[in-house]
């Protein structure tokens, strides 16, 4: 059965570049003169070009440009046309790129309906100016584009990526783009044992977070450093994303209330003020493993936002001087880490010790020898160390129970040579900086409810 364009796009998103192209050809879409088919063709050829080298790379970029150009001849449209111009530049034909970029300028300036959204209309203009080597005008145009939709961060990020690629291709400095990057994402965590009225710790945390000036903060809301940091994030005007290991009432009973009655109302107020609340597992108990998993998830979300928005991710650790940071996933990522020394000023009385639990990374592999049973690893590094050299379909899950069904279900959706991961595993990969890209593919039903499924490209983040 011929694949649909949606299926082919999904294959491309999963990283199965060659397979997506083969499906496109097998579906008879290669010779179809239709705008959607031609723009999909342009995208697939661009993906292949990025994986190729030398003359083949240039040829594929040129073919991609031709497909986009043809789409624009069927209906004048700045979206395929600006892509055609950029592809020609990446193919090494700057002169052809400039000719098309001039056409884009004429189209955008002459037709107010061009550009899809107010942001893209001006950003497309900016890209055309950049391709025409009119840098000051391109810079002014990009500033104007961002002013039109100051919160369209995902779109700004696409433009920043594209501009960086064009500037690299033409050997120009891309430093000036930094001014347009959104404020950093912040992951916060710290000790419980801070007295609710400890002004020294509160002032130090407030000051440090104000200096970082995050755009968004990610973490839990345990008594002490977490709650103080979350309050500082809200006070700084940033968005707060709360990630808890279990349902709020269970978490509050074990990690907030035992440390003094003053924390509970502050916990409730922060939950109310948060932009979102993520429960790693609403059915899980608050134990050491579920807390570690939620912490890892929060780090992953901070890193995910940074990658998605072409920004930076920073972590803050609020602990007594000299405390060893054992097993902190952030350390593996080599991202910025701020250590703030705070003293323990409160000792909880008769707080029951949390259960240990265990966090496992479950790896399932299907290769020439068939499908292996999921194997559990205590660390992500160990799980990735067990990956086959290449060619196999791989699924990765991260859990605090022994359920191996999700890892098996995920494998059904992995193609040869690709890795798919559950949301929890994808966040762990992002937290440790072991994935350069995670691409959402949809969601799958598991015993805990639905989980997002991601195609993973391993490697250091950009």
């Amino acid at each position, binding site marked *: 059965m011929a694949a649909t364009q949606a299926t082919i796009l999904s294959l491309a998103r999963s990283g199965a570049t060659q397979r997506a192209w083969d499906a496109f050809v097998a579906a008879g879409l290669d010779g179809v003169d239709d705008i959607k088919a031609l723009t999909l063709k342009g995208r697939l050829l661009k993906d292949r070009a990025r994986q190729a080298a030398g003359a083949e790379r240039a040829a594929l970029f040129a073919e991609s440009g031709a497909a986009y150009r043809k789409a624009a001849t069927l209906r004048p449209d700045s979206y395929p046309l600006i892509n055609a111009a950029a592809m020609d530049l990446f193919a090494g034909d700057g002169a052809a790129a400039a000719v098309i970029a001039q056409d884009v300028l004429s189209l955008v300036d002459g037709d107010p309906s061009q550009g*899809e*959204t107010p942001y893209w209309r001006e950003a497309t203009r900016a890209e055309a100016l950049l391709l025409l080597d009119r840098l000051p005008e391109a810079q002014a145009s990009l500033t104007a584009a961002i002013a039109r939709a100051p919160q369209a961060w995902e779109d700004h990020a696409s433009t920043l990526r594209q501009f960086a690629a064009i500037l690299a291709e033409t050997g120009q400095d891309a430093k000036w783009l930094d001014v347009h990057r959104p404020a950093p994402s912040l992951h916060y965590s710290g000790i419980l044992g801070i007295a609710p009225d400890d002004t020294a710790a509160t002032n130090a945390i407030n000051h440090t977070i104000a200096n970082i000036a995050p755009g968004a903060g990610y973490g839990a809301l345990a008594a002490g450093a977490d709650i103080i940091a979350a309050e500082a994030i809200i006070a700084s005007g940033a968005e707060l994303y709360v990630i808890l290991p279990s349902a709020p009432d269970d978490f509050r009973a074990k990690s907030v209330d035992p440390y003094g009655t003053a924390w509970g109302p502050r916990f409730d107020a922060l939950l109310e003020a948060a932009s*979102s609340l993520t429960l790693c597992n*609403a059915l899980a108990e608050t134990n050491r493993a579920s807390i570690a998993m939620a912490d890892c998830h929060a780090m992953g979300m901070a890193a995910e936002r940074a990658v998605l928005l072409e920004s930076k991710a920073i972590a803050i650790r609020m602990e007594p001087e000299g405390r060893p940071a054992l097993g902190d996933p952030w350390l593996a990522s080599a991202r910025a880490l701020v250590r703030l020394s705070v003293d323990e000023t409160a000792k909880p009385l008769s707080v029951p010790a949390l259960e240990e639990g265990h966090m496992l990374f479950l790896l399932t592999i299907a290769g020439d020898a068939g499908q292996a049973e999921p194997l559990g690893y205590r660390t992500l590094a160990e799980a990735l160390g067990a990956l086959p050299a290449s060619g196999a379909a791989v699924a990765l899950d991260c859990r605090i129970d022994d359920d191996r069904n999700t890892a098996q279900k995920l494998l*059904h*959706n992995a193609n040869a040579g690709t890795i798919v991961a559950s949301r929890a595993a994808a966040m762990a990969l992002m937290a440790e900086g072991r994935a350069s890209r995670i691409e959402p*593919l*949809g969601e799958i*039903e598991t015993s805990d409810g639905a989980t997002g*499924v991601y195609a993973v490209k391993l490697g250091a983040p950009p």
Partner: protein
Amino acid sequence: MMHGRGQKAGPEQVSAIAACFGCGDEAARLLGNAMIERQVARRMPLALRGDPATMMFLLLEGGVVAEIFGIEGQQAQLARHGPGEIFGAYPRPSSYRADIVATADTRLLSIGTLELSALAYAHADIGAGLSRLLARQLDLLLDRMAARIGLSANGRFHKALLELADQDGIIMPAPVISALAVSVHTTRETGSRALAALLRRGIVERYDDRLRIVSRRMLEELIV
């Protein structure tokens, strides 16, 4: 167990009924008049195995699982229901074959099995809506069994917006977001956040009486 005596369905619930059943306002009002809103706290049972099953439930918020326990206490999950799904006894009363337990604080609309059966028999719009809802749930169940990747909650919401729009991209009247969200099996928060993201990116514009899809291509790209 269920909290309180329950309340009659209000306008918001009637919008959710219309969106889930895919029926007109008149049919949704008829159903709404016969439905009572219930709440079940997280981890509390809605029903126990062997209890008489005399109701159908439309889940608005939260979730439930149907679970059974073997002789040695081993637990098995038979089914899981989320927002926009129906469960219970139909077309005749029966008994619960599993414990039904809330996985989160849960809000549902309940209707007597025989009453729903009679409404479906008397009103084609309700009967058609019910069959559509049951067929969609069967698809969902088969997808779950096949371990097939489906659209994300955001993806389903984006698709629903696209399907509501006319050829000029206009959705009029503007949809009730909580109702649209529940009809695609997600929460009001997820629906509100998804729409807010579309508005801030300029992909959709909001007016007093309608929404306008500014870029159909960009919205299509977000159906993942």
